[in-house]
């Protein structure tokens, strides 16, 4: 038996699958109720929880705020990430400062969100300002930047350098090569970066929790505040929506360019290569 294909590991992995997906599945099941309390399986199947959600104006407002923030961030962060990754590439692999700069761009990942959130709240106050939408967007750009740089950087590295060179030899200017060769080839990485930046922004609670003012309570922060003291099926309805939407997008991503690409991995690529090698 080939390594990693035995029955033991398959059974173990199926159990792990159950563990990983159980909390998500349970939320979706709990949302399909008309009763006023959370129960799994529901004592009374229905869509009452979704109707109740429509009456929760505060949650709807928070949803719009989160969506607006996520859309802004998913444009700005990949743009900055693209510029940074492109700048790093221009510096060339031989430059010593590339390693340092790469570490700098990944640094926001290494600093815990509590620390960032508290520091930003105090920083905002020390400038005599109050937490506002602009602070929220800036904070989210910071925490999504490492993902953007990493995903787009991986895309640039995976690209065949001969294609850009061919463009130059055929007489393209720097800009022409960039816009007609590099960018189109980067499309999967760019889409992945936009999706991940938007997703990280929409889901963030660690930083947003601290910089939330009365007018900037994002959806996860509002849900967290509610769940600390109460429990209600309409929360499950929100949960079901925000679980199924990104999972749907992830499934589409899987079909088009492989789920691994979304996270800057190239697992599927290797498998594909391996299969081709086996055929030869």
């Amino acid at each position, binding site marked *: *038996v*080939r*390594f990693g294909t*035995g029955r033991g*590991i*398959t059974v173990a*992995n199926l159990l*792990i*699958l159950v563990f*990983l997906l159980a*909390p*998500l599945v*349970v*939320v979706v099941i709990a949302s399909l109720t008309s009763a006023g309390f*959370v*129960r*799994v399986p529901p004592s009374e199947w229905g869509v009452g929880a979704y109707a109740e959600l429509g009456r929760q104006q505060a949650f709807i407002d928070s949803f719009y705020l989160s969506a607006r923030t996520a859309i802004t961030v998913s444009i700005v962060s990949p743009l*900055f990430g693209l*510029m940074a990754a*492109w*700048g*790093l590439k221009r*510096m*060339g692999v031989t430059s010593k400062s590339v390693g340092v700069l790469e570490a*700098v*761009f990944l640094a926001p*990942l290494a600093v*815990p969100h509590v*620390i*960032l959130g*508290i*520091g930003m709240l*105090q920083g905002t*106050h020390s400038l005599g300002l109050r937490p506002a939408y602009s602070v929220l967007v*800036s*904070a989210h*750009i910071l925490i999504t*930047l490492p993902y953007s740089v990493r995903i787009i950087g991986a895309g640039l590295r995976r690209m065949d350098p001969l294609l*850009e060179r061919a463009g*130059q*030899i055929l007489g393209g200017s720097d800009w022409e090569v960039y816009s007609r060769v590099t960018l189109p080839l980067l499309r999967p990485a760019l889409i992945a970066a936009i999706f991940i930046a938007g997703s990280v922004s929409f*889901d*963030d*609670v*660690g930083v947003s*929790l*601290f910089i939330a003012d009365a007018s900037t309570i994002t959806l996860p922060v509002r849900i*967290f505040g509610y*769940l600390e003291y109460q*429990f209600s099926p309409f929360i*499950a309805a929100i949960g079901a929506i*925000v*679980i199924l939407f990104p*999972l749907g997008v*992830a*499934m589409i991503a899987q079909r088009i360019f492989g789920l*691994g690409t979304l996270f800057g991995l*190239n*697992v599927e690529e290797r498998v594909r*290569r391996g299969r081709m090698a086996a055929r030869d």
Partner: protein
Amino acid sequence: MMLLPGQASTSRRSAATGLFLLPSLIVIAVLLVGPLIVLFLTSLTPELAGEVQYRPSTAEHYERFIFDSYFLAMLWKTVWVAGLGTLLAALIAYPLAIGIMYTRSGWLRTLYLFAGLSPLLVSVVIRTFGWQILLGSASPLGSLFAGIAGSSILHSTPAIVIGLTHLGIPFVLLALLPSMNQVDINVLKAATNLGARPITITRRILTPLVLPGLTAGCIIAFSINATVIVTPRLLGGRESVVFQGVIYDQMLWFFNWSFASALSVVLLAVVLVVTGAFSFWMRRIYLRPERQEAKAASRSGQEPRGLATEQDDVEVRS
């Protein structure tokens, strides 16, 4: 003469390169370095409920932390709970990564990858809500636990550990997969052909090769587990509080911003020390055989043969 990449006029190129890097560098300087400095300065300032003034003049907040055994006990609890959650996450992510890399079935691979990474696309609040339902009296599982243990498992330390394990798995996986991707599959095939059992292959061949990735994954998972607020708050409730919860209360309920800052600095320092020590220890383990091999090789005048490198990757590709 045609200019090829790397041959363009250097000064113009580097100026343009600097411009490309500028936006991201500004974001990091203003939004990362700035708040960290503010946080540190605040921790040295007398308490001014909600106000911020920078006259670093006191270490009273650090003294309060050190001399009150409650805070030290909470800190210790955070370290072991986060550590246990990380260990369990690594033990679960490892076989899953093996499944993703080596299973022959395409749809199983997709399913594993999907289950392993898709939790990252759902807010931690919702994932934790799922555990609240599962472990609480609202589900048959929670009722079963309550029946066996005598009290509900929700709002207890084991509930926090379960939540943190679930939280950590995708992060371990993300660091582990690229590492495993570098391993030459022929090495594993050779071991199988020579009659090694899967458990032996895992222990003697695969683990040493992927140890750097596994270490990185554990460090990320631990840093998150030890600092996340939502998961321990919702699963531990008032009955089981951890250090992050103390910081959260000091910050947003008591408005003791300076004290909260001091506790944050302590937490950051502890996370850095624990992950640094772990990294150092693991490095000693996975560099040891390689170093000996290199030494032996240099004695016999041969090229040292290290871990799987890019070279192997190229061979697979061609």
